[in-house]
């Protein structure tokens, strides 16, 4: 993606997210406080974040790839299960990824 396209993406995304914030302060509460809106808003983050985790860890373009990222993710999941702090999770995942890179590649 060109620099200009990246800038357009950054600015459009920022503007859109700001307008969503502003909308909350502006629209009648009844519009947003409908049960189905609340349901969607409650569950969209889990679906989106999980989809991103899967795609980030296992895809490369249109291919599914198993490499150090998946090992890092498994280590991160284990660390999170043991309630490790965020920084520890990231360091362990990074170390696992780097190790796989050195051993495999």
């Amino acid at each position, binding site marked *: 993606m060109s620099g200009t*396209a*990246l800038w*357009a*993406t*950054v*600015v*459009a*995304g*920022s503007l*859109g*997210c700001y307008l*969503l*914030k502003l909308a*909350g*302060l*502006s*629209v009648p*509460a009844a519009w*947003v*406080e409908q*049960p*189905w*809106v609340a349901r*969607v808003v*409650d*569950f*969209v*983050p*889990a*679906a*989106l*974040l*999980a*989809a*991103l*985790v*899967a*795609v*980030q860890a*296992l*895809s490369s*373009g*249109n*291919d599914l790839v198993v490499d*150090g*990222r998946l090992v*890092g*993710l498994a280590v*991160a999941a284990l660390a*999170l299960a043991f309630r490790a702090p*965020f*920084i520890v*999770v*990231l360091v362990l*995942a*990074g*170390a696992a990824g*780097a190790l796989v*890179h*050195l051993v495999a590649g």
Partner: protein
Amino acid sequence: MLRDALGLGLAVGLYGAAFGAAADAAGLNTWQAMTMSLLMFTGASQFALVGVLGAGGSALAAVGSALLLGTRNTVYGVRLVPLLRPRGVLRWVATAHWVIDETTALAIAAPDRKLSRLAFLVGGASIFLMWNLTTVIGALGAAALSGAALAALDAVVPAAFLALLWPRLRKGFPEAAIQRRVAVGGAVVALALTPFVPAGVQVIAAVVAVVLAGRPRTREATA
């Protein structure tokens, strides 16, 4: 309260650095990462946008994911209006920029309206400063990496997303069992679509599929 604020500051700082690094890994330059933290200023959406770009996704898919996560802030705004009652166009426009997960939690937890406003304003300002400062550090730090360190960064990015997701799946989060099913559904649909659709589109398709699958249950809940 001070210990809570310090803890929050540290957490925001770490996520800010992780965002800066993820933005660099996705091909954004430092200025673009900084612009996002200054203007978008909502962590999950920022991660989503660079996450989709990093997976080779289109601008449209990237912006779409950011907006999907940004809808949370709309709901927060509705909850905050009675507490903050922003008067005048300038305050209304400025207040909107501060509406995120953390400031909403601070404002709602405060014991009265005056403290609520203070927590929102001061909390928002310190989070904003910390977030922007650490974004620069993360972006510059990641830009200096190569070789095995770059492979480490590749593994850190999905781990950071997993850490964002994890609290929603844990016992004690409202409806954690459904959150888990939604998460598994989202991941499975996204992976299944990966070979067949342009990169990034599978992420949005996964969300749409999960929301549609949840519809009948939603109707029962509302009936």
